[in-house]
């Protein structure tokens, strides 16, 4: 074991002398995580400025206008009265307003007379969500008006005499739609962008160390130092363990530093260090297993480079390091859980959203360890053939 540690220390020292190790292991992931945190700073809250043009003087128009400023919508919209539809359209186009409502002339009269009537919602193709929300606000208002008209029409269709029409209309205004969607919090913490992408980037760049051990191995073979090691009383697996041990230390240190700095300075939160450390250790072991696999399957330094890059990018794309995999189609989510980084990110996601039960941590850690054992096992079996003199 001592020999393996000596080999690992030497590899690590060599690795750290190269400036790209610092760039890939620390600067790049931190830069990307910080960028993402700044880019999505405003995405966590939603408030919109809506314009309202009331061309009708009737009671329904007043009710609509009052509803917009009511307590239910206070947190969601700020209402600005606009003189005419043309100005409102211009302001929506200029993004001064996120959307606007127009209640046309005669809206109340037409509605009460049972004639077709409409509320117009002006929106921009560049503010689609605001448009959808505005449209839904108008629909909610229209729904109650329509429900009352529908109630009267249904009662008439069910045989109510036409002499009772006025009485029915009067009674219908007292009705309230008997189904209400009521918001309940899930009890989970809101996922911050940085809490997902800081570990995503830390893992992505740590994955690059998959090729480090292999390159150093073949460089030693080229320079003849490997033969000299083989002459010493060392088992082939000791050399392999020494090589991959440096990968373990490097990737673990890199991930913990990036994740730690993101927690301290960028507001990422995973609720204490235990889970974070467990996930990083398990992920580092998976990276170690992959490094060993690359060494035993590649025949040249170029092949190490090629295999390493392919593994890094395939895992990163499928595992969800670039795109929040949970938002993807269900199939993508299942594919992500075939990768160790997909499991690590699932673990970080659970920690970040407050699901901190042991089960939420054990499943990803065990899955990564199983991956490491299978891949590492293949590497060890093959190492006898490859490393034996």
């Amino acid at each position: 074991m001592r020999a393996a540690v000596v080999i690992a220390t030497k590899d690590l020292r060599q690795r750290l002398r190269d400036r790209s190790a610092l760039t890939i292991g620390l600067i790049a992931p931190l830069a990307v995580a910080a960028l993402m945190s700044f880019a999505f700073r405003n995405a966590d809250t939603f408030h919109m400025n809506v314009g309202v043009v009331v061309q009708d003087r009737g009671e329904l128009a007043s009710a609509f206008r009052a509803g917009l400023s009511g307590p239910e919508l206070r947190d969601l919209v700020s209402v600005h009265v606009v003189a005419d539809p043309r100005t409102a359209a211009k302001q929506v186009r200029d993004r001064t307003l996120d959307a606007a409502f127009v209640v046309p002339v005669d809206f109340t009269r037409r509605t009460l007379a049972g004639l077709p009537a409409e509320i117009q919602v002006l929106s921009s193709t560049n503010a689609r969500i605001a448009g959808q929300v505005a449209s839904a606000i108008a629909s909610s208002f229209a729904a109650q008006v329509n429900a009352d008209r529908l109630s009267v029409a249904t009662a008439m269709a069910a045989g109510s005499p036409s002499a009772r029409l006025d009485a029915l209309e009067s009674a219908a205004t007292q009705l309230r739609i008997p189904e209400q969607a009521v918001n309940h919090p899930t009890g989970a913490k809101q996922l911050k962008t940085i809490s997902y992408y800081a570990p995503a980037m830390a893992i992505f760049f740590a994955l690059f160390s998959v090729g480090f051990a292999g390159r150093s191995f073949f460089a030693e073979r080229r320079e003849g130092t490997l033969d000299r090691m083989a002459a010493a009383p060392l088992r082939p697996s000791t050399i392999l363990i020494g090589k991959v041990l440096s990968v373990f230390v490097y990737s673990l240190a890199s991930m913990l530093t990036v994740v730690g700095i993101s927690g301290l300075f960028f507001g990422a939160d995973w609720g204490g260090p235990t889970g974070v450390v467990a996930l990083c250790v398990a992920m580092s072991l998976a990276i170690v297993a992959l490094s060993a696999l690359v060494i035993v399957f590649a025949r040249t330094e170029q092949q190490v480079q090629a295999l390493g890059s392919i593994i890094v990018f395939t895992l990163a794309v499928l595992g969800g390091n670039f795109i929040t995999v949970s938002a993807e189609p269900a199939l993508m989510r299942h594919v992500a859980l075939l990768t160790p980084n997909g499991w690590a990110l699932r673990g970080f996601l659970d920690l970040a959203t407050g699901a901190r039960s042991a089960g939420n941590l054990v499943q990803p850690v065990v899955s990564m360890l199983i991956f490491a054992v299978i891949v590492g096992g293949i590497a060890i079996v093959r190492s006898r053939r490859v490393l034996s003199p």
Partner: protein
Amino acid sequence: MSILAIARTAGLRIVRDRTALFFMIILPIVVIVVVGAVVSGVDRIRVGVVAEDDGPVSSALVAQLRANRSLLVRDYPDVGVGKTAVRRSEISALIEIPPDTDASLRRGATVQIPVYANDVSQNAQAVDAAIQSTVGAHGALVQAARFATVQAGGTFDANLARARHAGATIPAVAVHDIVVDTKSKFLPNGFNYSAPTMLVLFVFINSLAAGAAMIETRRLGMYERIAAAPVTARSIVLGEMLVYVGIALTQSALIIFVGALLFGVHWGNPLAATALVFTWALVGAGAGMLAGTLFRTPEQSTSIAVAAGIILGMLGGCMWPLEIVPAGMRAIGHLTPQAWAVDAWTELLSRGGTLTDITRQLIVLIGFALVLVTISVRRLRHSLVT
């Protein structure tokens, strides 16, 4: 002639590398598919439904939710599983239809439909609004059926059928959505979004990574050997540049053809698109050659290239539209060539732009290319003549 020979040799060395093939062809296509699949669904809001009641009135509500075109409805076996899906952002909200919904509505009671969503997000408001309007529309039918039953007699079910029929025939207060502008600042969704942004991202990253080949050439002393022949430094520089432009163009062509043939991507005005692809190839070539003259080892070049390419891509709007980021970030983003290229593609794909509409972007990109190429050519010439 010597320029072509130098370009051919350098080109062959890069193409024979199978990793290059992976990065040039397979990876961009995989990423286009993944990103395209992810963003193609963003127009519809993913919601979950737990139907704890299977009576006809509750089932009709679920059916109405499914019929809402702004919602993509998935079933969940229980509230716990559904809430986990909300927490993991797999769905934006979970709608629970409580066990006695049907009976309560028939009885004349008011039913609350719990909607579980994350506290605050842009999406949450849109989700809330979409769910409210569907529940409201369904509730209107129930209200009408109950009202008719009380006022005119008959059964609830018969009156519900009457309400459905009346709802389809009487004029209702409508909500008329008017989009006031047609020119979008965003790329279209789906593959039309992922293909052009990934073209910008990968052509740049690949060109940068190809700088490794130039470092290898330097390390092997091949430039000295070429220089020993009656070849001017200028020919070597031009030969190298030809390779980098060639690589960038080949990759662009591949992404464009695969995008058009497999995913039906419409690349906009052909003349303008061609001009943009060529200009972007020049920017890539300049960046690649700069990487080739700047770094000492091929490893440095490839690893830093990837990091730099991704960071610039993020800043420049390849990963998300710059329209959604704060103004300061948008301004910083436009210090990268990527932002100008993505802007130009947006103009071509979303607004039917022509060559004249992207002149400004092309001029800026040519400026970037000139700076990068000039610096790298000077560095390369310097290393050749000293």
